[in-house]
């Protein structure tokens, strides 16, 4: 229990709490059920992608093609949805097709990273540029609204349980699922293991390539789910809607305490990272901060958070390095 209090998650949780207290003083609206659910709903897509990215980053990789993959799935889904009948089967079908396409694209990244051993950032930079080009070529940026989608889709998108949107539920399910995966499944432990020590993991009989393909595939899978979420959120296909989104995803993950060199990262941390970004976006308008200053504030908070975290980390390391000196 003690270790939890000292963990990285704690410091970001602290920042969130402080920010929330300040914001609720400034704006009474902040701490309302409606606002909180709006924040969660608005960041569900970010959250789902960030969770996939957490696994990738734990293994020491990175995937900058997430936004492109998600958009690709959205575009394909949009094209398919038009032909689907107005029946629940369509929703089921959507939940089969979207993750499937995502997995295929993600596994492609995984294959290149593991088999050809190209650094992940480079592979995904390449696939990002290719996928973006293909999307643009095919769609020509065509915006598609929900009028042509089956009615059931709109119903699905607006679905709520006790006032909680299906998007938040989706996000929650994914979070819990990924948490379970990391904590309670063999592959999840292997993800942490190869991030912790590549050499040892091979000696321990862990199939390094398999795990890598898995994490990128899983990232793709979540990109597929995120595509459904984004589509439900905007109820429209906007091929440009996620341009540059990968940076936010990565920012959320690293803010959540995952180590970009691998080995460290938790679902709860990432969740907090997403929350922090969401609250900042939301709070700046609520706090009536001049629009032009908003980016300055966000940048400064990111710098403060990472600096603070690093100083903490150094301190704990120094403590560990101490030896007993006779008085």
């Amino acid at each position, binding site marked *: 229990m003690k270790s939890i209090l000292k963990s990285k998650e704690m410091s970001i949780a602290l920042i969130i709490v402080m920010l929330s207290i300040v914001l609720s003083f400034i*704006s009474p*609206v902040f701490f*309302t059920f*409606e*606002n909180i659910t*709006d924040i969660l709903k*608005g960041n569900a*897509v970010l959250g789902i992608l960030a969770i996939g990215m957490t696994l990738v980053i734990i293994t020491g990789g990175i995937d900058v093609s997430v936004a492109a993959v998600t958009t690709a799935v959205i575009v394909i889904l949009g094209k398919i949805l038009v032909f689907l009948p107005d029946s629940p089967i369509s929703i089921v079908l959507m939940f089969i097709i979207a993750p499937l396409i995502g997995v295929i694209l993600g596994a492609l990244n995984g294959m290149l990273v593991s088999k050809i051993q190209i650094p992940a950032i480079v592979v995904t930079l390449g696939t990002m540029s290719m996928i973006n080009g293909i999307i*643009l070529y095919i*769609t*020509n*940026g*065509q*915006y598609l*609204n*929900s*009028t042509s989608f089956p009615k059931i889709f709109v119903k699905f998108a*607006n679905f709520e349980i006790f006032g909680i949107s299906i998007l938040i539920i989706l996000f929650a399910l994914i979070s819990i699922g990924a948490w379970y995966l990391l904590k309670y499944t063999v592959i999840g432990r292997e993800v942490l293991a190869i991030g912790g020590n590549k050499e040892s993991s091979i000696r321990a009989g862990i199939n390094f390539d398999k795990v890598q393909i898995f994490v990128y595939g899983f990232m793709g899978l979540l990109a597929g789910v995120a595509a459904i979420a*984004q589509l439900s*959120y*905007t*109820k*429209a296909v*906007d*091929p*440009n*809607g*996620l*341009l540059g989104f990968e940076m936010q995803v990565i920012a959320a993950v690293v803010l959540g305490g995952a180590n970009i060199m691998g080995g460290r990262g938790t679902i709860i941390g990432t969740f907090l990272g997403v929350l922090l970004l969401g609250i900042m*976006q*939301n709070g700046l*308008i*609520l706090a*009536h901060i*001049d*629009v*032009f200053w908003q980016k300055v504030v966000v940048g400064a908070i990111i710098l403060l958070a990472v600096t603070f975290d690093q100083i903490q980390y150094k301190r704990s390391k120094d403590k560990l390095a101490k030896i007993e000196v006779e008085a």
Partner: protein
Amino acid sequence: MKKLLGAILSVVLMVGLLAGCVSSNSGTTSKANGSENADKSGKLKIAVVPKLIGIPYFNASEKGAVQAGKDLGVDVIYTGPTEADAAQQVKVIEDLISQKVDVIAVAPNDQAALTPVLKKAKDAGIKVMDWDTPADQSVVDLSVHQIDDEAYGRHITKSLVEQMGTEKGEIAILTGGLSAANLNSWIDGAKKELEENYPGLKLVSDKIATDEKQPVAYQKTLDLIKSYPDLKGIMAFSTIAPLGAAQAIQEKGLQDKIAIIGANLPKDSIPFLEDGALDLAILWEPDKLGYLTVALAKDLAEGKMPQDGQEVKNVGKIEVWEDGKTVIMGPPTDFTKENAGNYDF
């Protein structure tokens, strides 16, 4: 040292290779322009450069431009950067100069940024005009405006007041990007109208950027509604922002409380117009603008300047300002739930 020398040498070689090309080819280029194009197909080459390609608005313009090309028997090259970045746009234009087109019509991402390259185009004997968004007026031969910017902004303010049904209360402005010049000039027009005629309306915040993304506009609108519970109206500039804003209104069921006027395309707005979340979309018909641009470009290449009140086929009557080169396509079109279905963009 050897390696460094090698490196420098190879750079020199590379440059030399290219430079060598310069001398060997400069002869042909200088004699060229009109004749060379003519002997290929005899058709005029008209390049239409949007701010970026791959967004609905400019796709709609493309349709009109291409159609005009077919109708008028000219080659239309519709190409632009993939991001609304002035630097990229300059490169596109530079490449077009290399392609030796006859006319370049550009919707500048940044007025000042394009001035040098447009001058270069002119020096190469290419006719230069702007469309959609004004370029530096000293370099263009013709300036095609869909609309008078200030009048458009004022029109949006007036329409908002009309839809709100009151001249008192809080309103907000959403915009695509803080650095979009044409959006900014419309917003300036709208603000002028507010200041001069509607002192009762209070702008709650400076223009709010939505990054040309629907989810961002949606989120920011939600935040707006929450922080300003008395908000009565929203002006949403850019083709995407109104959709996000309307979506927020729709989902919160505030159709009757908050009026939204958007500067967007009818087809995308239909669900929101029908629902009442979006009260009015005000824009022009971008395909007509594309058509008009090409039509006037052809005339320009043939040495004809437009006349005030001139009737352009498939577009309608145009207005030409006193300077003789500023063309206004016409008044904006109000898209309502009744007529929105009639348009294919």
